[in-house]
């Protein structure tokens, strides 16, 4: 499985394919199917994960991007800047170009790099016949830097001289519910006293009557610091670039082929039609998706005219990170003496690095979710994204939801400690209810499942406490420091939420086509979708949806081969499964309506009102039914084909139309999760061993339960990494990147106990709101947001549990053994 299957005409050998004479080359879109042999037409059972792909993975036959290669390809290498801010004054690559085996060296000006904006910026690339030659060539490149004083402390960005024409402050958000609350209290009083004169007097916002007699309140103030997340992919980022006549074909992991294609076209100065991007399978953990690497490989392929392989681990690590926290949060929680939350005030500064635009979404999400899933009358959130000379902020695992959850839950525990009650009590007392407002003023549509989630987590069994006698079950494990008498167990419960359709969301679109036909083995459904299968089982989800709608066991999913077919907009991670799933579902329903037209006529009902339940076709009221086999046999006689298109859109705001999901104005669709983490800590050494994380999720609809469990587990693992992995960024210059990251090993990862996901929240929509918008089905939520919210919740729970076990209120994440926090 070494040659890309999407290159049917690609020659094994030195010779490159002829430039495409005709327009037959499908360079219009990134449409090649990656692993067509891995489709599973056979029905799957159980958790819906299937058998073929797992077997290929376990035996090492599943093709990742790094497994691609052809004889005659060149290897890329990359030099990253050792300075955070500098000007390149001179650059000599003649010695490097003279080395035998070196085919291309691009450095400094040739690469379009004159000014260094951040530590680790790509300053030179080379292509050679051997990866070691490529690195040797780069060692021979002499670059003269004129370093300047960099701005690395985000707190200095406000007062420092601007380092960019756009200024140092890239974004500022300020949300407050105070105005809203004042207006509401006026409204409420108006209702009570409809007299115009008194109402007029009430126009001046006044404190509510209760607060005139101020109850004794407690304020809890803490500052939290988050290091840059040490989230590493299981496999390195790999780009395989093949020059293709005028164009370049790029095989790499990509979450958004269209965006990346646009960026590549801009970097290469070529029309987009000449760039062909083939998505490769996903490798776990962080997205190994490096724009520098893609551009380097594409440039070198275009320059040398030969296939280029660029692997992140051998191409060049970041020379150094920065010890500065990437986010600083200052939170104030004010509670009554009985534990009722009165006010939450949050200020935060996010270090966006040299390209701060990407961090705005992080800030937005934080601000919307700042208070956590709790009822707070007054929330005030203010945040900034600043520009510094630090490396651009990588996508934060779990997003702003994770930051918000860790801070909010830590504050809830601090509040409980200040009041001398349990953290659970404070949480339950202030639980968010349906109709409560988020900091941006939107009302939460459904929060009814929160108590159920909390109860489910509390009901799950706790691992027995004294671990051992095996020393590996103690904190410190094979370091043999474990001592039963100096062990304390900590338990942390965390609630978190995630915003499904943020208000500013531009329209996202997905389309699909479903065909129902038959062959000698019976009916078979063909699905065309633009959804990329990256090894995460995305297509298994679509198969499941079609099976459910049509009752057909054999479903083939493929990406379209014709350019321009099935348009789809870039989808933010987390909504891909939902949108594509809905598009496929609508197409499948269209097909069903066509295929069942005869039965519908017989029943004298509209074909849209027929459903497939088990092996029967049933009318909507369940009164009339026919065996499905008979119906299909009649409908599919003579190789009949039924074909239907499906389309689904989602928008953050605007008028509601059929086929477009728009949340009602001022409403927020939110998914919830509750986790309980149990950790054991060595109280003297501060060493921590996570024991178990119990996860209760509201998953919307769990179509492929196995995938949901896996996504939650992955979220918990990345959370354990974020909370406990000790990244030593300052050492990156001299040591390997992964050796610096010190990710948790199998000895210090928790068990993950995934409780059966609740499937309620979106079900509420089904009856009223969705029907009005022309849907009759619940939204099949993808598993990606499940993974994101799992990360957010587990990170908060693990941090709370660690604080509980250590007895100190640690405020910097990751929690390290050698740091200490204020005593409780």
């Amino acid at each position, binding site marked *: 499985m070494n040659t890309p299957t999407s290159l049917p005409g690609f020659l094994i050998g030195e010779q490159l394919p002829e430039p495409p004479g005709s327009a037959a080359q499908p360079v219009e879109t990134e449409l090649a199917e990656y692993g067509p042999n891995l489709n599973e037409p056979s029905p799957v059972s*159980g958790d819906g994960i299937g058998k073929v792909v797992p077997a290929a993975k376990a035996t090492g036959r599943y093709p990742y991007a790094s497994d691609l290669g052809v004889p005659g390809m060149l290897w890329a*290498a990359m030099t990253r800047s050792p300075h955070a801010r500098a000007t390149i004054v001179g650059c000599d690559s003649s010695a490097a170009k003279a080395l035998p085996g070196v085919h291309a060296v691009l450095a400094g000006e040739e690469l379009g790099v004159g000014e260094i904006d951040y530590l680790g910026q790509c300053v030179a690339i080379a292509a050679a016949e051997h990866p*070691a030659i490529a*690195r*040797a060539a780069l*060692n021979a490149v002499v670059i003269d830097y004129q370093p300047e004083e960099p701005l690395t402390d985000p707190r200095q960005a406000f007062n420092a001289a601007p380092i960019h024409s756009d200024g140092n402050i890239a974004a500022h958000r300020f949300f407050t519910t105070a105005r809203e609350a004042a207006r509401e209290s006026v409204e409420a009083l108006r209702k009570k006293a409809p007299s115009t004169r008194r109402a007029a007097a009430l126009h001046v916002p006044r404190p509510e009557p209760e607060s005139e007699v101020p109850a004794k309140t407690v304020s809890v103030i803490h500052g939290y610091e988050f290091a840059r997340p040490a989230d590493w992919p299981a496999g390195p980022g790999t780009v395989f670039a093949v020059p293709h006549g005028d164009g370049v074909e790029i095989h790499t992991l990509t979450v958004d082929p269209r965006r990346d294609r646009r960026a590549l076209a801009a970097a290469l100065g070529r029309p987009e039609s000449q760039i062909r991007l083939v998505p490769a399978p996903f490798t776990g953990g962080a997205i190994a998706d490096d724009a520098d690497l893609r551009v380097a490989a594409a440039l070198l392929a275009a320059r040398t005219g030969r296939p280029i392989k660029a692997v992140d681990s051998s191409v060049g*690590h970041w020379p150094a990170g920065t*010890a500065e926290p990437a986010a600083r949060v200052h939170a104030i929680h004010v509670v009554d003496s009985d534990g009722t939350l009165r006010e939450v005030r949050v200020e935060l500064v996010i270090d966006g690095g040299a390209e701060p635009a990407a961090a705005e979404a992080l800030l937005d999400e934080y601000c919307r979710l700042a208070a956590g899933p709790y009822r707070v009358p007054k929330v005030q959130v203010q945040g900034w994204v600043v520009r510094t000379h630090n490396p651009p902020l990588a996508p934060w695992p779990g997003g702003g939801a994770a930051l918000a959850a860790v801070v909010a839950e830590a504050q809830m525990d601090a509040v409980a400690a200040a009041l001398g009650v349990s953290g659970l009590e404070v949480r339950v007392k202030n639980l968010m209810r349906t109709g409560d407002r988020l900091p941006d003023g939107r009302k939460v549509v459904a929060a009814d499942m929160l108590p159920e989630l909390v109860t489910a987590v*509390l*009901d*799950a*069994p*706790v691992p*027995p*406490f*004294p671990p*051992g*006698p095996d020393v590996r079950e103690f*904190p*410190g*494990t*094979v*370091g*043999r*420091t474990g001592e*039963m*008498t100096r062990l304390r167990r900590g*338990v942390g419960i965390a609630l978190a939420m995630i915003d499904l359709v943020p208000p500013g969301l531009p329209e996202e679109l997905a389309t699909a086509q479903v065909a129902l036909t038959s062959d000698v083995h019976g009916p078979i459904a063909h699905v065309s979708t633009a959804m990329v299968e990256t090894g995460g089982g995305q297509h298994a989800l679509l198969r499941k949806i079609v099976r459910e709608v049509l009752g057909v066991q054999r479903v083939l999913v493929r990406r379209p081969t014709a350019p321009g077919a099935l348009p789809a907009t870039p989808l933010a991670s987390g909504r891909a499964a939902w949108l594509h799933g809905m598009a496929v579902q609508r197409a499948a329903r269209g097909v069903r309506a066509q295929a069942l037209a005869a039965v519908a006529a017989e029943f004298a009902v509209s074909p849209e009102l027929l459903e497939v339940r088990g092996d029967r076709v049933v009318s909507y009221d369940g009164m009339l039914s026919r065996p499905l086999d008979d119906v299909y046999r009649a409908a599919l006689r003579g190789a009949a084909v039924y074909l239907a298109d499906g389309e689904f859109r989602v928008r953050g705001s605007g008028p509601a139309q059929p086929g477009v999901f728009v949340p009602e104005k001022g409403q927020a669709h939110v998914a919830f999760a509750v986790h309980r983490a149990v950790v054991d800590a060595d109280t*003297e*050494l*501060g*060493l921590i*061993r996570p024991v178990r994380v*119990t996860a209760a999720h509201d998953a919307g609809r769990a179509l492929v339960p196995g995938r949901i*469990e896996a996504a939650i*587990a992955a979220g918990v693992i990345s959370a354990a990494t974020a909370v*406990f*992995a*000790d990244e*030593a960024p*300052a*050492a990156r*210059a*001299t*040591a*390997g990147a992964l*050796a610096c990251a*010190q990710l*948790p*090993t*199998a*000895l*210090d990862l928790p*068990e*993950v*106990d*995934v409780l059966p996901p609740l499937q309620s929240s979106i079900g509420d929509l089904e009856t009223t709101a969705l029907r009005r918008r022309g849907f009759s089905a619940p939204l099949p939520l993808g598993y990606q947001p499940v993974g994101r919210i799992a990360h957010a919740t587990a990170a908060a729970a693990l941090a709370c549990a660690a604080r509980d076990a250590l007895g100190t209120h640690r405020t910097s994440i990751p929690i390290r*053994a*050698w*740091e200490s926090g204020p005593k409780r």
Partner: protein
Amino acid sequence: MAPGAVTADGAVAFPGSVREALDAMAARPDATLVAGGTEVMALVNSGVLYPAGLIAIDRIDELRGVWFTDQEAVLGAATTCSDLMHNDVRGVLPALAQAARSVGAPGLRSRATLGGNLLSGKRSGGATAPTPGRDLLTVLMALNAVAVCCSPEGWRQVQVAELYARDGGVDLRPGELLTALRVPVSGGPQGFMKVGTRGGASRPLVTFALAADLTNRSVTCSIGGFSPAAVRVDHAGQWLAEHVDWNDGSIPDPQTYPRFAKLIAEGLMVPGSAGAAGWTTAAVPEEYRQHAAEICARRALVRALPPAGWLEQVAEYQKRAEFVRNRALVERAERGLPPQPPVPGVPQPRTAEPGTPPTAGTSAASVSKIPKMPSRPKPGARP
């Protein structure tokens, strides 16, 4: 080509004996010596080192293996960490086996060698190593090991500490090969402890080794991880030797434990001129290392020379823990559940009757049902 044959124009040498290895080193002074390759290849893979030649010494029988006599154990320098974890070594030098286990994951231990562990990292006069290491050195120092080196001039035996210069860098003579380590076998209690950056095999922050020799009535201890080379803390050992009742190997005064620990921690106070052990742990504050060294020293001493009645108390703790576990078993049995809780997230083979109720979780109250740990041992008995 015969299996295993290598044609390399002299770039790669496979000496079959120490003599041949020395000849190869003399012939190719620029060649890189490779036994396990775990350090060399990390450098080569990252493009720091371009070896002009390789001398592979992993197949020299003289260098690999452990030989025992009545008085001492001789450890070949190319013995791998997994070899050191063998039961025969574990029985005689338990601390060494414990240290070998904490060096790395199994895939690394099968290659990483004893000599490589001692001689990796900082060179004499060189820069600080990227990652700290030399966990085995801590143990060998505490065990009074003697390093056997061979060069064309002949054999040389030095205390293992003398392999290092004052700055903690490796200080072998040019053309010299570390062939073996001779470790006296005392048979007394010994132990190794490591505080790392994570639970599994990790970079050391502090390593501590302690060995008590009941016949010679001495205690030796050493501490590593905070500087490039481990150091012996002899004054603490000598002080301790005066406070041990050597007739039965017990410590009469419980205050001895914290005092000994304090001595160890204060030994760390002397600022090491050698600098940090490695870049990746340089940010860890000295206070924590001192604290960790103190804790490790106390715990290691309690394990090696327990206070009177301590073993009984540990047994009591373990009995209680066992009781809790057994009670959980009984409770599960009473409720008709299988003895082992199902592995979360994994479908279990169905063993229960179809009629039995599904695995209901224990109620929330079960948290409080966990019995209180027995009260701590009497202050007099526990340091």
